[in-house]
C-alpha cells in the first residue's frame, strides 16, 4: 500500500511541480519578453562619435520651405527678419535664456542671450533688458572680419561659419553690444545633446553636415558664437526659441517686408506697433541699423522687484550636470 501511495504521491508531486514550473516559465517568459519588446529604434551619432539609439516616434520629419537654390550665405529671399522686445512685459523669468542655452547646447560661461539689469538714469526705474545679437544692417562685426567667416544675409540674419573662423576676435572687439562669445576651449556638448535627443524629437539629425544656420551645433574651440535668430527654425516656420519660451510674450518676431510680428499668440502690424509704443533701437546713433526694436518699459505689468529673485549677476548658463 505504501508503495502505491508513494507512487501516487510522487506522480502528484511531479504534476504539481511541473504545473508550477510551467506557469512560472510562462509568466517569467512573458516578463522577459515584455522587457525586450521595444519600439522600432533608429541610430544617431552624437558629437563624440557615440552611437545613440532613439525611438522612431521621437524623430520627426519636418517640411522645408527652403527651395533648391537655398544658399546659407544668402538666406531666405524676399524676407527680412526683425524682432521686437517689449520691455514693459519682461520680468526676468529667464525662460528665454534657458531655452536658448539648451537648444544651442551652450556650455560656456556666457549666454548668447542675456537679460540685463538696466537703469538709464538715477531718476527712472530699473528694468530688465534682454539683449541678443541685433543683426545689424551695417554690422561692425562683419566689416572687420578678415576671412569672411561672419556674414550678413539677404534676409537680414548675421551668421558665423565656424569652420572658417580663425579666432582673431576682431568682431568681438568691434561689436558695441557685447553679444559675441568665444569658445576659449572645446565645449563639452555631448551630454546636453544626448538629453535633447532622448527628451524631444525636435533635434537635428546629428549626421547632418554642419551649417551656420544652426549655431552651436556644434561649437568649436577657438571660434566665435552668437545668437543666430534661430535660422534653423525658420525653415520649419517656427519662431526662435526665445520667442517661443517666453511666458510673458516679451519677444515678437516677424518679417519687416510683411510688416507683421508675432509672439506666438499675438500678432501685430510692425509699423503700427512701433509707432504706437514709440519703439526704439539700442545705440541708434552708432549708425549700425540693428534689426531688433525695443518697446519702452512703461506701465510694466510686474514691476522690477519680481525679477530680482532670479537675477544672478555672475551666471547666465546652467551647466548640464555630468551623470
Amino acid at each position, binding site marked *: 500500500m505504501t508503495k502505491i501511495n508513494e507512487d501516487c504521491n510522487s506522480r502528484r508531486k511531479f504534476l504539481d511541480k511541473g504545473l508550477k514550473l510551467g506557469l512560472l516559465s510562462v509568466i517569467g517568459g512573458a516578463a522577459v519578453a515584455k522587457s525586450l519588446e521595444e519600439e522600432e529604434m533608429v541610430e544617431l551619432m552624437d558629437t563624440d562619435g557615440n552611437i545613440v539609439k532613439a525611438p522612431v516616434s521621437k524623430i520627426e520629419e519636418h517640411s522645408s520651405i527652403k527651395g533648391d537654390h537655398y544658399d546659407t550665405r544668402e538666406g531666405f529671399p524676399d524676407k527680412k527678419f526683425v524682432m521686437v522686445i517689449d520691455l514693459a512685459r519682461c520680468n526676468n523669468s529667464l525662460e528665454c535664456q534657458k531655452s536658448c542655452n539648451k537648444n544651442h547646447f551652450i556650455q560656456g560661461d556666457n549666454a548668447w542671450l542675456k537679460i540685463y539689469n538696466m537703469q538709464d538714469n538715477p531718476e527712472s526705474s530699473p528694468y530688465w533688458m534682454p539683449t541678443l545679437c541685433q543683426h545689424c544692417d551695417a554690422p561692425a562685426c562683419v566689416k572687420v572680419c578678415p576671412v569672411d567667416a561672419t556674414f550678413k544675409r539677404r*534676409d537680414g540674419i548675421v551668421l558665423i561659419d565656424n569652420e572658417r573662423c580663425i579666432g582673431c576676435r576682431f568682431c568681438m572687439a568691434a561689436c558695441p553690444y557685447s553679444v559675441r562669445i568665444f569658445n576659449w576651449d572645446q565645449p563639452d556638448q555631448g551630454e546636453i545633446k544626448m538629453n535633447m535627443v532622448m527628451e524631444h524629437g525636435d533635434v537635428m539629425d546629428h549626421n547632418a553636415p554642419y551649417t551656420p544656420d544652426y549655431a552651436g551645433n556644434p561649437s568649436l574651440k577657438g571660434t566665435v558664437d552668437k545668437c543666430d535668430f534661430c535660422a534653423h527654425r525658420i525653415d520649419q516656420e517656427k519662431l526662435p526659441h526665445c520667442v517661443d519660451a517666453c511666458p510673458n510674450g516679451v519677444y515678437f518676431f516677424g518679417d519687416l517686408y510683411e510688416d507683421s510680428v508675432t509672439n506666438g499668440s499675438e500678432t501685430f502690424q510692425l509699423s503700427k506697433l512701433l509707432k504706437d509704443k514709440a519703439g526704439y533701437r539700442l545705440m541708434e546713433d552708432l549708425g549700425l541699423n540693428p534689426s531688433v526694436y525695443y518697446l519702452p518699459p512703461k506701465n510694466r505689468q510686474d514691476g522690477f522687484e519680481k525679477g530680482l529673485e532670479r537675477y544672478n549677476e555672475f551666471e547666465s548658463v546652467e551647466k548640464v550636470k555630468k551623470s
Partner: protein
Amino acid sequence: MNQEIQKEMKQNRIRNSISQLLCILFIVFTNSLLQAQTKQQKARLSVSYYKEGNLNLLKASAIYKDETQFKPAQGLNLNAYQVFENDSLVLLGTMMVNAEGTAQIDVSKVFENDLLQYDFEVEHVGSEKYKKVSGDLSLKVAHLASELKPVDENYFIEAKLTDANNEPIPDTELKVKLQRFFSPLTVGTELYFTDENGTINVPITTIMPGMEGKLNYEVILQDSDDYGTIKSVIQTTIGKPIKDLSTFDQRTMWSPPRKAPWVVLIVPNILIFAVWLTLIILVINLFRISKHKNKSYEKH
C-alpha cells in the same frame, strides 16, 4: 511505518505550501516589475474638426500629466471611426499623435454621403504606455463662403455662413485674418458677428505688403460646437509689392570680399602693386649687382 508515512506526508504538505507561496510571490513580483517599468498613462483626448476648402480633417489632441507637467502623448495610436445611427462603427483610418501632441486624418470621403449630422469616435485601444481612452465628436455641416468686394476706392471682405440646407447661420463669431509667415494678422476687430443673413462685411483699412502684391485673407469660424472649425481663404493681389531693401547685392564694407566697394578694391591694390613692383626691382638689383662682377670701375 504509518508514523513514518504520516511524517513524510506532513513534510510534503509543508514543502508544497512553501513552493506555492514562492510561486505566488514570484508572480506578484514580476507583475509589479512590469507595472513599474511601464506605468500606463491616462491620456486626455480631445477631438475636433477642421475644414479648409476641400480639406476635411478630423483632429485629435492628446496630453498626459507627468507628475506636475502636461506633456504631449506622443506615439499614441488612434483609430478614427464614423458612428452611424445604429451605433455601428466604420473605421476611417488610424493616426498617431506627434511630438506636439496632435494627430489628424483626412475624412473628406465621409461627406460624400450628404448627411445632416456626422458623428465620429476616436479611440486608443490601450497599450503598454497608455490606458484605453476615447473621444467623440458630433458635427453638423456648414459652408463658409468669402470673397473680396471692391467698392469705390476701398476693398471689403464679405463672408457668408450657411448650413447644410443653405440657410444662413446668424449671430455667430467669425474672425478675419491676413495670412503672414509665422502667424496671421487680425484684420479689423477681433470678432465679427454674422447678421440675420449670416454675412459679415469687413472693410480693409490698411493695404498691407505682400509678395508680388499677393495677400491671402482668411475668414475663420473658430471651434464652433456644432460645426467645428471652418476656414475660408481669399487669394487677392491688392497688396503693396514687397521690395528687396537689403544691401546684399550692393558693394559695401560688410560684403563678401568680391563685393567690396570699388575704392577699397582698387586703391589698396594699386598701392600694393606699386610698392611691390619697386621691391621686385630692388631684388632684381641684387642679382644685377651679382652679375656686374669684375667690371672695370672706370666710366667708359
